[in-house]
């Protein structure tokens, strides 16, 4: 995949800034959108100049103005409009929806333990129990008894099994689809091998007190494209 160089990136940014107003959030995303558009066309054989002029052709000034307008109008508009006369097109859409069916096994959306648990340390800015310093907690700590069965929270492949006495202790990282990874730390025992595939709900380890830990607990993380996200938002069952 082609990546634009600095000068090309600046050129795209320049023409975007010339046309778009103050909405920063929108501008950042349109910037990436435009760069990706140019890169995709270059990837398909176009020169930067060709791709760039195609971009300007496709997104004129008017298009950008209308994006900003839609943005403002959106919060007042009702979304569901049923247009009965156009049912033929609806059938095509149904086909599309059937093709893109939900596969619930992929996302880590179950609890890593089978039973009830207490969250002893939440995600985000927390006081570290041992050093007493404020740090960003990349996961959640579930207070569970020693040797509580730990399960994989989605289908995946065991990426790492490692023991870090000065960190996560005995821990497992499982890679899932679409950029998700889960980490299970401070374990006492691991029952899977690196490279092995696991299914959602499968027991992979027993909880423990290994590594830097102030008592028996399971440290659990979900990472999306290598960045930790709040597991609480994912655990639905």
């Amino acid at each position: 995949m082609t990546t634009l160089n600095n000068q090309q990136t600046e050129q795209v940014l320049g023409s975007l800034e010339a046309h778009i107003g103050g909405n920063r959030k929108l501008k950042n995303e349109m910037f990436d959108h435009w760069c990706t558009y140019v890169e995709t066309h270059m990837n398909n054989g176009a020169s930067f100049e060709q791709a760039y002029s195609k971009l300007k052709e496709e997104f004129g000034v008017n298009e950008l103005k209308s994006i900003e307008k839609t943005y403002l109008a959106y919060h007042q508009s009702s979304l569901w409009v049923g247009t009965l006369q156009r049912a033929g097109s609806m059938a095509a859409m149904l086909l599309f929806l059937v093709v893109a069916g939900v596969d619930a096994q992929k996302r880590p959306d179950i609890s890593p333990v089978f039973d009830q648990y207490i969250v002893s340390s939440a995600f985000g800015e927390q006081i570290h129990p041992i050093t007493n310093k404020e740090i960003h907690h990349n996961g959640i700590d579930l207070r569970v008894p020693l040797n509580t069965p730990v399960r994989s929270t989605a289908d995946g492949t065991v990426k790492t099994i490692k023991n870090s006495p000065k960190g996560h202790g005995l821990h497992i990282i499982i890679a899932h689809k679409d950029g998700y990874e889960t980490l299970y730390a401070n374990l006492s025992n691991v029952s899977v091998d690196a490279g092995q595939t696991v299914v959602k709900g499968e027991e992979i380890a027993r909880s423990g007190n290994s590594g830097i830990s102030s008592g028996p607990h399971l440290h659990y993380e979900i990472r999306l494209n290598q960045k930790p996200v709040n597991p609480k938002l994912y655990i639905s069952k």
Partner: protein
Amino acid sequence: MYSKELLKGTLRTIVLKLLAEHGSMYGYEITQKTKELTSGKIVLTEGALYPLLHKLEAEGYLVTNTKSIGKRIRKYYALTPEGDEKAISLSNEFADFVQTVIYLLNPKLSPKS
């Protein structure tokens, strides 16, 4: 390509459903995937997509994650568990609606009551 009026009420369903299927995606990817899956019959414009994504995020159906690519920041969207449920309920509702309309327009196809 379908008209804006027709697509308006279904964009939400399409976007949530796509994310349910493909996990985390960024805006450009969503527009391309939609084009690809519908052989170009449904085109999501940026003007419709980004405001909708931001709205769904504010409503708690999506979470975001960013990645730097040089000067650019790429924003990935993924469903929260609420978003996952919403994707299922909206697409079920929509499929049901389509079925109803097909029967309405073609009474011969209706199951005999």
